């Protein structure tokens, strides 16, 4: 994809899928500012990509903290003049069966995975609707939005993220602001590597393409949605799961 001239913000860009997204967007020519809560990840990735000559900057921050995303996006617009792509990728999980799930496990996941996306999306929309070229907002949801054992909090947040993206598409359309949700299937990251081998094998056995996905697989779809090639695509929920029916 050609993303020359585009400015992108990626939350949760320090590792896993978020990191692959940062690398891919930057490789396609975008100026990328990514945020992550982990200072080591921010420093390591920022240095690595900067040394490769890519226009990437890392910011340590917490999407769930009031005012934080607003101030990151304000500073991106002040430095670069515009914001063309927002990718809501920051996400955590705290898996427990629902009847044993604590209030804290619920609150923590909703705060990062959904409310954090709300803060970032609201701010991005405020900026993008003033731009004649609008913009593209992507929410990294999950196939688990359809329900997932031990993930009542995660599934709810990911379902909520779909509602947020589709509403943004409805409201932003007239300003040429597009919004879409991506549902990765079973992707090999720290999050999924935490599963037992038995559970891992059980999931992979159900994937038609026969293997877990890589973060780069999700990143390719993000780059497409952020590009002008996808300028008529909005309000969609797109799966990248090797054919896995959840």
């Amino acid at each position, binding site marked *: 994809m050609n993303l020359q001239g585009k400015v992108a913000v990626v939350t949760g860009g320090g590792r896993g899928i978020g990191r692959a997204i940062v690398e891919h967007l930057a490789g396609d020519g975008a100026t990328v500012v990514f945020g992550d809560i982990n200072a080591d990840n921010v420093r390591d990735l920022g240095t690595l990509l900067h040394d490769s000559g890519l226009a990437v900057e890392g910011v340590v921050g917490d999407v769930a903290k009031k005012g934080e995303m607003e101030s990151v996006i304000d500073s991106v617009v002040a430095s670069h003049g515009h914001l063309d792509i927002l990718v809501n990728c920051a996400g955590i999980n705290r898996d427990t069966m629902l009847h044993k799930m604590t209030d804290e496990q619920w609150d923590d996941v909703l705060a990062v995975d959904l409310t954090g996306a709300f803060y970032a999306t609201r701010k991005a929309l405020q900026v993008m609707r003033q731009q004649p070229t609008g913009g593209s907002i992507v929410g990294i949801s999950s196939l688990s939005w359809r329900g997932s054992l031990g993930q009542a909090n995660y599934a709810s947040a990911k379902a909520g993220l779909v509602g947020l993206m589709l509403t943004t598409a409805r409201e932003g359309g007239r300003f040429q602001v597009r919004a879409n949700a991506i549902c990765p299937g079973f992707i090999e990251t720290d999050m999924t590597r935490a599963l037992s081998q038995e559970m891992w094998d059980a999931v992979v056995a159900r994937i038609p393409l026969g293997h877990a996905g890589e973060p780069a697989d999700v990143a390719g779809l993000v780059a497409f949605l952020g590009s002008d090639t996808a300028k008529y*695509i909005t309000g969609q929920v797109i*799966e990248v799961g090797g054919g896995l029916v959840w």
Partner: protein
Amino acid sequence: MSADPGTSISSSAGIAMVTGAGSGIGRAVALRLAKEKWDLAIIDINEDGLQETEKLIEEVSGTGSSGTYVVDVTDARRFEAVVADIVTNGSEIRVLVSNAGVLSVTPVLELPIEQWRRTVDVNLTGSFICTRAVAREMVRAGTPGRIVTVASVHSVAPGTNVTDYDASKGGLLMLTRSLARELAPYGITVNAVGPGFIVTNLAGGASEEYVDYIVPRIPLGHAGKPSDVAGAVSFLVGPDADYVTGTLLIVDGGMLLTADL
């Protein structure tokens, strides 16, 4: 399956077939793939349209397509002969865009059985014929491949006075998903694109009343272009879509969110 062939392909590796390439979306897809250096084999029932597309491909690529074939996609024997012809000289088919389709507007209570049969035959059975023939060849050649069907927003939402079209496109979506499941072990991905209100010969024939009704109800505020759909096809047959299969990628400017079709 002994070895996993993976799903990666590249345009230097073989032929991309496009049906219904004589106009509209099919033509736009052929031109886009030609720009991306695919060798094209283009098919249509309409010879004039096909020759016009061929001329445009020559302008884009400098060399023209690998073959133009005047074929009715409901003719299984003829289509299979075309596939055999393409691979005879050692070419491999890596991509099929199954796009040929018909649309006419008739209230269901007046819809003649002959029209129903023709719509389903072209839009659904035609895609079965083409995808089966090409899939057989891809499996025989033992190399990864990409199949894209051109479905519609009508695969998931009903229109007005287009019952046969709606049913055929709904069926085409499930054909796509079923193929994706069966062909995955061979490294073949199968996806559908779902165009919304695109100005082509078909939707370009829409009444002024329909245009005045639908366009204000599209979030992005305008009709789409065949090139918008071609861009989505390009993504699905490209290197960034190795792990995407069994999906419906809708290109509709948000129309499904806000409009009754």
